[in-house]
């Protein structure tokens, strides 16, 4: 990366870290929610954007992570154990979801992952003894780590931001490693990738498992942020929103989900000035964006240059 890009990146990070200190609770809450969706979006970008595996099941992993955090924190388990547990559980379930991807591709895979999302939704809704069913789980405590309670909105935001930076750095390393190139090869031409010795089975499964683990971490932050979980936010509509996040930002671009989650999480809030029309305006903007910027917002400079 050029020095200029480093400066822009560090300035951007400093802005995101410090801006909420000047905001009221509403702004802090929304920025935290943006970070949470961004972590899940980064995971989906790996699965969809880098490895080329379509997935309509990311909300299910967000849900598994959120319910893991809710159930474990209510049972008094410390958050230091909850984050790895949520990530590990989603990694394993993601690995299992990767198996259909070894046999089917494209829209068939989309429906397989959609079915998985519905399955998870039904488990969350019907297994009342574990998940609280339709009533959900309320009063989820904010985390305490190393004796520090992240109870105030700004403190919890800084914890979420720290997790975002950590997961972002890990993702950057992963994508720059041979694994990243193997994922890209798998996406661009699986047959050629296999012919040059890339284990496509392994990398397909890993693309799902790692993407799912990111959503699990995001879920483990979602639960203490909202302090309430019920099945509805983890349905198929949220999976579609997450896919929109990846595509609207720029699929297969590192910073794509950051802009995409601005579109999905923050834009509807900014459009509230349009009163009853705000969701209609949002829908119109998405349609317009897909028509004029199919490569996502990050493709705007290339489009301007052309």
């Amino acid at each position, binding site marked *: 990366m050029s020095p200029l890009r480093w400066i822009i990146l560090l300035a951007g990070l400093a802005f995101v870290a410090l801006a909420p200190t000047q905001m009221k609770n509403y702004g802090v809450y929304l920025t935290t929610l943006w970070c949470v969706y961004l972590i899940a979006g980064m995971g989906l970008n790996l699965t969809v954007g880098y490895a080329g595996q379509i997935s309509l099941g990311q909300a299910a992993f967000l849900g598994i992570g959120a319910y893991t955090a809710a159930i474990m924190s209510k049972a008094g388990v410390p958050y230091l154990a909850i984050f790895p547990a949520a990530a590990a559980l989603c990694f394993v379930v993601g690995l299992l979801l990767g198996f259909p991807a070894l046999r089917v591709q494209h829209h068939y895979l989309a429906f397989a992952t959609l079915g998985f999302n519905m399955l998870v939704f039904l488990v969350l809704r019907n297994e009342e003894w574990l998940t609280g069913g*339709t*009533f*959900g789980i309320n009063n989820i405590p904010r985390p305490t780590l190393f004796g520090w309670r992240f109870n105030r909105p700004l403190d919890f935001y800084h914890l979420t931001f720290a997790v975002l930076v950590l997961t972002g750095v890990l993702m950057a390393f992963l994508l720059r490693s041979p694994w990243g190139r193997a994922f890209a090869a798998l996406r661009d031409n699986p047959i050629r990738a296999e012919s040059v010795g890339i284990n496509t089975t392994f990398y397909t499964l890993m693309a799902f498992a790692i993407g799912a683990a990111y959503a699990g971490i995001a879920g483990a932050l979602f639960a203490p942020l909202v*302090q309430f979980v*019920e099945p*509805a*936010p983890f349905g198929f509509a949220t999976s579609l929103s997450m896919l929109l996040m990846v595509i609207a930002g720029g699929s297969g671009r590192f910073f794509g989900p950051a802009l995409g989650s601005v579109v999905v999480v923050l834009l509807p809030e900014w459009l509230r*000035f349009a009163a009853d029309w*705000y*969701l209609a305006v949002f829908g119109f903007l998405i349609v317009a964006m897909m028509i004029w910027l199919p490569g996502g917002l990050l493709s705007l400079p290339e489009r301007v240059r052309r």
Partner: protein
Amino acid sequence: MMHRRTALKLGAALATIGLPAGAAESEVAIHNNVELSGTGVTSGSMWKMGVDLAVKEINAAGGILGRKIAITHQDNQSQPQIAKAVATKAADAEPYVMLGPIFSGDVNVSMAVAENAEIPMIMGGEAANLTQQGMKYLFRTSLNQASAMPKLANYLAKNGVKSMVVVWGANDFGKGGRDAMVKEMAARNIKLAADISTEPGQMDFSPVVVNASKANADALFSYMNEEESARFLIALKKLGYDKPVYGETVLVSQKVIELAGPAANGAKGHVGLSVDAPNPKVQEFGRKFMQAYNTSSDHNGIKGYTAVYLVKAATEKLGKFDRKAMAAAIHGGSFSAAQYPGLLMDESYDDKGDLDRESYLVEIKDGKQVITEVLPPVGKK
């Protein structure tokens, strides 16, 4: 091409549409956190219309203690994480009172925000557990499921129902009502002949009707949201189900009657709020609502309307604008409709924020709710 001045004017106009009216000294700010999109849109829209009607009337009559109400409506998309954002935004603005939401999940996240900010929150949720969590600033606008179901179960037992099919929507509202009713049935030795769950948004209810018929019970109890209830009534009529069909509030609501058409005829149930109640104040409200919106108000319209009038009644009783004192005044307080006509009915609150008032047993005849019995408030028994 658009002139620059026109564009500027348009931009300025757009920027001001829907902006919360800043509560000046002569105004009192009320924020409404409500389901105006998503699965709760039917309930939320009615609630909003009720709120708007009350605000218009109160402002036209000089406001509350001489201050006009500045109302702000914010859509929570029927999603708890958005409802929490909306509640947080409202709390940041430090309104006098927060109104809504209606769905239990949305209420659950919003009430914690209101509690921390010490702002009274008058909501439309009916799930029993909402007021059982020790909140000091949470108030209902209708009976909760735990108080409504015994009234209906008593009626069923009195009419010789020995076995019943229970059909419910698989969300917090449906499941909460189902649990409350099954408990009351067991207490009165009414057998649960079939326990059938349905999906929110379900379109085809034929299999449900077939399973209900197979159970061969004395009656059927249906507890779902508005659209599903209407579709279910249509399916029951189409497939010739001939046993009595009962419901609580939603099944016999104006919205369901409007959606189901003639298929709603014959349905019976208990309602806490009805514009056809044998009460001149409620009927007058029904006429005003119809005149303003060209549609009948259902229970959510009445809830929204009375929520605003409760703010007025409690504040005027107190003689000042004081959030903490107002919340304390509503707890254990009684408000008479003779003194505060906008409340439509006498109501009293307990220390948890639960509401008690009279309610009705109704039957749908020729597309109209006909009241068959007026039930006194639980506390008067």
